Structures are given as C-alpha cells and as structure tokens.
C-alpha cells in the first residue's frame, strides 16, 4: 500500500469511507456472533452485554457501514462520471471525521450506558429504542447535517460537471434517501402511528432508495469493469428506476398488514409485493446479458481473454445480482402475502430474509466497490483474483447462505408450532423455541456465522494484500 496511484481527492476520501465501513462491517459480524451465541447459550454475557445490546450494535453497524460505503462509492465515481474533481471536498473530509466521531460515541453509549430512564433525555442522548433507528436524537440531527453536506457536494459537482444518467439518478435518489430519514425522527405515544412512520424509513430505504442506489452502482461497475455501453446501461438504469420505485414505494403495504392500519393495505401490499421481484429478475438479466454481449464481441475479434478488468469485484457484482434475487426476491416472496404473513410475521423467517437480503443486495456490491478502490489505488490495469479472494468470497457467501437456511428451518418450526398450532401465545412461543429443529437451526446459524466471520477476516487480509500481488496486469 506504499504507492498511492490515486490523484483525485474525491477518490482518496472514498477510500477513507471504505476503510471505516470495513471496520464497522467487522463490528457488525462480531456482535452478530455474540447474539448468535446467546441463542445457543442464553447465559452468555447475561446482564453484561445482553442480547438487546448485541443486536442493537449488530443492526446499527450494518446500516451505518452500508451508508458509509455508499457515500464512499459516490465520492469514488463522481470524478469518473462528471469529469471534474468533486466540489467541496474539504467539507466532505471534515464531515467524515464528524460522522466517525459521532458513531464511536453512539456505539460506546449503546455498550456502556445501554438503557435509560423513561424520559425524553434518554431519547435525546441514549437511545430511541426503535429497531434500526435506535440512534439517539442528537445523532439523528447530526446524521441529517452530515448527509446534507454530502448531498451539497453531490449536487454541486453534478451541476458543475458533466451530468450523466448515473449521476442524475444518484442525485435524485440520495435526496430521497436523506429526506425519508426525517420521517423516523419524531416521537409519538401511539405505537401504530410510530410504526407507520418507522416503516417509511426502513422500507423506503431498503426496498426503494437503496435498491435504486445499487442499480446506479451496478451500472457504473458494468461500464468500468467490462466496458459495457453507457447508452445501453443508462437506459437500463432508468427502466430499473421505474420498476423499482413503481413496485417498491407501494410495496410498503406489506408492512401495514398488522400494525393497526386499515385492511385495504392487504390488497395494496399483496399487489405491489407480487411485482417487487420483477425488477430484481430484470437486474439479473441485465448483468448476464451485458456480460455475454461484451465477451461475445471480444471473442468475435479473435481475443480469448476475459473482458473483465477486475475479477474479484466483478464476482461480487454478479453475486449481488444473484443474492438480491435470492434474498430480496425468493426469500421475500414466500412470506409476502397476507394470508401467509399472518403466520410468518415476527418469526425467524423474517430474520432469514433480512440476513440474505441485506447481504445479497447491498453487502456484496459494496465489497465489490472495495475491490475497485484497491485496484485503482495500486494502479492495476487488470486485477485478478488471489486464493484469498476466492476463499473469502466462498466463505462469506456460503456462510450467509447457510445462516439463512438455518434460520429458515427455525422459522418453519415457529410457524408450525408457535403459530399454526398454538396461536402465538407465550406458551406457543416457548414450545417453538424448544423444538429440536429450532435448536439445531440456531446451532447451525452460529456455525455458519463463524464461517462468515472467518471469511471476513480473509477478505480484509486480501483487500490489504491483493494490491501487491504480482500476477495482475499493470
């Protein structure tokens, strides 16, 4: 890592973002392991670092590392897309440190203060206690300020330089992404109203704006890694935006089946959820088609070499198309209809879907961006996989898939025992948890979690060392 080939300040800043994202990714997996151990050995760290604390850090680190990597990705691609250096890079650097410091403080408070008395000071300074949006209000406001700074940079750069389709989509998407966060900042005594707005943030992030974001990143990746035609890729990006927002925005209905909201959400949720997998299928075709087309054109010219300029990154991009389809598509689809969701809502099924969808749709492509950064930082023309990158890819993907299958089996036991037979009472819940399949599911989840974690360590080692490998074309 001695030589830094990056000349763009924006790209240098992007590598900072990627670095902190990778650290948080590690924290996410570590606290996930603590929570997984607690399922198997309930006494583990009891009243020291309880499940609720471990899980809070697990899911918050997840969201924040992805936000960091997403911001990094934007800083990374802006100079390439607009043709100019990012405007306001000084502000970007300042806000990076503000953001990092805020996150460290929030996590320390989660770990060492944990809970507070039932008054507004807790909400302001310790925790808001709403899954995924636990961050206390001061941090909420901080996040909004930091993201506004980021959006200023994006808009100023987009308006000054060349505004490609990718940049235009990102500009619109990031504004929506930030704006939606405001819906989750209020406090209300009414749990139904609370969860109504809470889903605005969670759903409209992960099933609308984040999906569009990865669409844009995938477009960038296809242009830069396999030389796909910009015109085609960008047209395709607009179609994806139409399909994703067209199905995703109202797909929020599938979260409004049981929280006190009116029954018409059943129909809305069922209709748009049924359509939600279609863009995922379409994104999958797109990657496959463009790859085939480019490789075909190459071979027609008599060159047998691969068109891919970054093997590990491209592998993760392809896994994204596949993982998104599998995690968000297949695992989402089979419990999305109200008739079935009535039994699966709030079981390990949701958790299985969450694991594979977050990983498949987002973690994969962001890891791909890490590799692109490593490639350029080391001035490599064609980057090839190392043994480590292959091991890391297989272990992480296999590990997450294994966890998902284990959780799915556990969820199936819960549906049959706790829900269908015993009507979701506490007795039913405990009976379900005691089931042999459930217990084994949790054992396997832990084992697969360990596999994922080892894969992560290999990934980090690879990211740090692949640049100095000698088999790349420079």
């Amino acid at each position: 890592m001695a030589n830094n080939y990056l000349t763009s300040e924006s790209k240098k800043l992007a590598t900072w973002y990627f670095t902190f994202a990778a650290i948080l990714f590690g924290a996410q997996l570590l606290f996930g392991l603590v929570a997984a151990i607690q399922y198997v050995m309930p006494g583990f760290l009891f009243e020291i670092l309880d499940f609720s604390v471990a899980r809070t850090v697990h899911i918050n680190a997840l969201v924040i590392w992805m936000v960091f990597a997403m911001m990094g990705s934007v800083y990374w691609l802006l100079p390439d897309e607009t043709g100019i250096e990012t405007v306001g890079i000084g502000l970007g650097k300042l806000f990076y440190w503000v953001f990092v410091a805020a996150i460290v403080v929030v996590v320390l408070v989660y770990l060492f203060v944990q809970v507070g008395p039932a008054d507004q000071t807790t909400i302001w300074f310790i925790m808001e206690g709403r899954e995924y949006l636990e961050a206390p209000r001061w941090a909420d406001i901080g996040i909004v300020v930091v993201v506004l700074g980021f959006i200023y940079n994006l808009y100023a750069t987009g308006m000054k330089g060349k505004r490609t389709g990718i940049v235009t989509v990102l500009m619109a998407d990031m504004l929506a992404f930030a704006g939606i966060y405001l819906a989750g900042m209020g406090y209300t005594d009414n749990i139904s109203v609370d969860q109504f707005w809470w889903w605005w943030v969670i759903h409209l992030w992960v099933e609308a704006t984040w999906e569009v974001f990865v669409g844009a990143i995938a477009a960038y990746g296809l242009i830069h890694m396999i030389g796909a035609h910009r015109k085609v890729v960008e047209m395709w990006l607009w179609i994806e935006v139409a399909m994703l927002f067209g199905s995703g925005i109202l797909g929020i209905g599938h979260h409004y089946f049981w929280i006190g909201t009116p029954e018409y959400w059943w129909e809305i949720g069922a209709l748009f959820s049924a359509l939600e997998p279609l863009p995922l299928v379409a994104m999958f075709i797109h990657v496959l088609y463009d790859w085939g087309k480019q490789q075909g054109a190459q071979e027609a010219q008599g060159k047998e070499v691969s068109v891919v300029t970054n093997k590990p990154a491209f592998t993760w991009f392809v896994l994204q198309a596949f993982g998104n389809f599998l995690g968000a598509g297949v695992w989402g689809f089979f419990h999305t209809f109200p008739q079935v969701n009535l039994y699966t809502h709030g079981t390990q099924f949701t958790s299985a879907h969450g694991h594979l969808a977050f990983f498949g749709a987002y973690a994969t492509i962001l890891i791909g961006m890490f590799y692109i950064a490593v490639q350029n930082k080391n001035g490599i023309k064609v980057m090839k996989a190392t043994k480590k990158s292959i091991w890391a890819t297989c272990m992480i993907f296999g590990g997450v898939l294994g966890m998902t299958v284990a959780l799915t089996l556990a969820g199936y036991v819960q549906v049959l025992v706790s829900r269908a037979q015993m009507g979701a009472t506490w007795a039913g819940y405990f009976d379900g948890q005691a089931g042999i399949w459930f217990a084994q599911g949790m054992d396997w989840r832990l084992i697969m979690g360990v596999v994922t974690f080892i894969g992560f360590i290999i990934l980090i080692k690879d990211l740090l060392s692949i640049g100095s490998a000698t088999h790349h074309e420079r």
Partner: protein
Amino acid sequence: MAQKSVWSDNRFWQRSASWITGFAAMLLIWLTFDTIPQIMMGNDTDIKEGVTKRVPGPTVINYKITYEMSKRRGHEIPVIGGANAEGTSSFQEKELFFGRDDWSQEEAMEMLALGKLASQAKNCMNCHTLLGNGAYYAPDLTKSWLDPMWGPEGPLQAMTGKSTKEEAMAEFLINPSQYPTHARMMPKLGITAAEAKGLVAFLKHMSTIDTNGFPRNFGKIKGAVHGK
C-alpha cells in the same frame, strides 16, 4: 440516428421513471392521509359513546379486554368491555386495573405515555416483537395482556406471588432476573415501579389495537386448531 425507436430512447425512459415514481409517491402520500386519521388514538368520549376505534383511547385500561372471532371480518378482533349483539365492543364490562376502574383520560394517558416512552428507553424491541416487529429472542408483546400464561391460572402470575395480572406483570418487569421463566431470562433494566405500571398500561392498551387478526387463533390450546 434517424429512425430512433421510442423504446430505446433514454429520454423516454427517464420521463417514464419520473412519472411512475411521482405517481407511486403521490399515491402513498394520499393513502397516508387516509390511514393516519384512522389510526389516531381515540379518547374517553369515543368509549363512552360506544365508538370503536382502530387504536382506542387510553381509558380502555378500565375495561375487560378479550380477543374474539368476528364472523363479518373473518378474523379475530379485540373486544372491549364485552361483546354486543354484533360481536363488537360494547364498552360495558369494567375491570379493575391496579385497584381502580375509573382512571380518567388524563391519568390513563399519563400512564400510557410513560409506558410507551419506557418501551423505547428500555429497548424492548431488540428482544421482543411489538405488533410483530422487532427481534425474535423473546415472546411477542402484541396481545401479551391477554396471554393465558399471565392469566389467573397461568404459571407466570403464580410465580410472582401476586393476585392480579397487572401487579404480577409489574413485579416481573421490576425484577425480571429473579424469576426463572425460561433459560433465556429477561435482564434487569432498572425499571422503576412507576415505569412498570406505565408499561403494563401500554401493554393492555396495545392488546386493544385492531391488528386485522394478528395473531391468528390466539390463545387456542394445543391441538385445538388442526388436531395435531
């Protein structure tokens, strides 16, 4: 570039994407304007006048709550103060809550508000599910007020040595790790007596929210549903 098809025109797709997104967003906003008034919390006057709200007023804590199958809606609904001829809430039958059944709107609201705040301050949602959302490490709290385990015959009420459900729940919340409920115990979270009372009011109120029949077949004993 002369015979350009509209289907392969970026501008066309850009406009389509904008229109579709705009339309979906407007529809969501419109539906939000329809939904929010329907899930606003009712008040004591509604209850006195026999008006059923999806999220009823806080004074439901003065009434007996049940969860019964509605023929018309095809699923269970919360019934407050006993059922009328149509099978919906009659708001008649009262029930003591911490020794009183005449909590005023203000008093009840104060307890409920404290309970809701406590549910967030104590991070309940990262072990339990509320309305089915949250973590899956501990039981769902949506209808926990109605759960047989906490009822007069239930083992949990007996375990705390209290004679009423609300006192048993409050006692458990204050000292959860003293009571052997399950291998996965609830940790002590520093919940005060007032907060515990508020939390129980919050739980009782939550059981009266119309959740469109979630959870299904709640409280049916083992084997009652499909004879397994």
